[in-house]
């Protein structure tokens, strides 16, 4: 290897190193305030400024969490998490299956849109949990009711975003591909889908977030045995604030993971690659 080649390889290595250093720094910037908050919380409780029975310190919450995984039969905490994830994701998946085709249809068909959109604007701001008693009456306690309520939480944001995404496609974009003699299905797959993807992705994010938020309340009202919402609610009978906080912390953590990792990966592979660039050329 000549000196020049070594130099180039070094340059590439140092660029890589700089990149990972930047990511590390960003990670620290994010984690540090969270740890700071936990530390203050711990100290405030330990110093006796707050009643530890109402607000248990993070160390005890963590200990309780581990206990619920390792010192219980069937790792009860994992059962709660599993049930909650299953319900939220199932509701979200059904919402996508329903809202995506419906959204494309309403986005493309002006007459249908004019009829349906007023109804949507009335239903969109309605909290899905409000439907829980109706489902309890018809479906009883259990997964069917919880998933139905979460579905209602997830379906409107996905539907609304899909419609917006499709409607925002400039008609001339479709004219350009039609001029190429594109058959209908190609217009759909090669233009409508990718063009609406950024907005549809936002809808997915919102849909899953809504499903997750709705879940807690629905589980409190309709779950029979498992689920984080159920766990938090059931713990009140024993004044078990540690278990309640285990549930709350997990809800936050899982919600965070959905938002930043699940969709982040898809976004990095698509939208950010298409749009996040600097301009070049004159």
């Amino acid at each position: 290897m000549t000196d020049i080649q070594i130099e180039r390889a070094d340059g590439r290595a140092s660029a890589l190193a700089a990149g990972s250093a930047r990511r590390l720094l960003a990670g620290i910037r994010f984690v540090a305030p969270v740890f700071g908050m936990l530390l203050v919380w711990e100290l405030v409780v330990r110093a006796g400024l707050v009643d530890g029975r109402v607000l248990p310190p993070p160390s005890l919450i963590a200990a309780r969490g581990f206990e619920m995984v390792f010192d219980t039969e069937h790792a009860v905490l994992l059962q709660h998490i599993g049930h909650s994830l299953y319900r939220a994701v199932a509701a979200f998946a059904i919402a996508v299956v329903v809202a995506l085709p419906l959204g494309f249809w309403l986005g493309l068909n002006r007459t249908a849109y004019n009829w349906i959109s007023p109804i949507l604007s009335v239903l969109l701001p309605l909290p899905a949990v409000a439907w829980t008693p109706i489902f309890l009456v018809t479906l009883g306690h259990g997964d069917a009711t919880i998933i139905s309520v979460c579905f209602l939480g997830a379906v409107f944001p996905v539907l609304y975003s899909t419609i917006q995404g499709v409607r925002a496609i400039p008609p001339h974009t479709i004219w350009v591909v039609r001029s190429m003699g594109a058959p209908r299905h190609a217009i759909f797959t090669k233009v409508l889908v990718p063009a609406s993807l950024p907005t549809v992705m936002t809808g997915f994010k919102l849909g899953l977030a809504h499903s997750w938020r709705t879940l807690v309340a629905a589980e409190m009202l309709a779950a029979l045995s498992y689920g984080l919402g159920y766990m938090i609610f059931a713990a009140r009978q024993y004044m078990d604030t540690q278990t309640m906080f285990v549930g709350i912390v997990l809800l936050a953590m899982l919600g965070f993971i959905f938002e930043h990792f699940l969709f982040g990966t898809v976004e990095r592979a698509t939208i950010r690659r298409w749009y996040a660039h600097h301009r070049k050329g004159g």
Partner: protein
Amino acid sequence: MSAEPAFKPRLAAIPDPGEPKIVAEGINKTFINRENGEEVVAIENLDLTIRDQEFVAIIGPSGCGKSTFLYMLAGFEDISAGTLSMDGHPVTGPGPDRGIVFQEFILFPWRTVLRNITLGLEMQKVPRAEAEAAARKWIGLTGLTGFEDAYPATLSGGMKQRVAIARALAYNPEVVLLDEPFGALDVQTKFYMIRDLQTLWQEAHKTIVMVTHSVSEAVIMADRVVVFSARPARIIYDERIDIARPRDALDPKVIDRQREVTEVLSAEVDKQMRREAGRNPLGN
């Protein structure tokens, strides 16, 4: 309508007129205004014959119906009355024999420059390697070499419009329709585009119809300049530009022609303004 001819046809030597490609006869277009239900006559009794491989620039006051006419040729806007045919067949809808370029550089941001340009060929099931070879030819001719793998978001307006032009040419339509292709560009970029692309149009061997609001653009680029009247659109000027290419904006022959077209156009704009002032007595 006034029947007086607005110009005296001049018998110029016509370089290679070609067979009639697009024939419009007695075209009318009436829009219904969505808000008040009033009829807007955009085009009235328009006749125009465009010949094979002719480069025609259409110019006229804004709102006179130029885009409407172009979209009719593209097959996206239907005709209220009259006939419009291409190669003797009535135009009934869009088709790959006509490519279109819009002012707002419509690109597919999820595709690289190369993939934007190959899309038309992909639609026609042309094998990938062949499609890329064809695309690269137009990338070269439009000055996009080196940008093949760039995403549109990284390009300036001028480069974006080069991609849109290359894309419209790459799938080999017989007619290319351009709706104010340089209208969204700054003066400097526009100047370079018009200069750089002069040879492209000759190389393309296509019938080209370009709508523009710039007289100099029309005179420097086209074989023939057609001026539309204020709405409803009729033809008030139709002349061949017999000036050898490449044309220079400072060539006295070019300047002469620009003056001639500008006179026809400003007389028309004045007439329109007077008519509008008449409709609005406060004249604000």
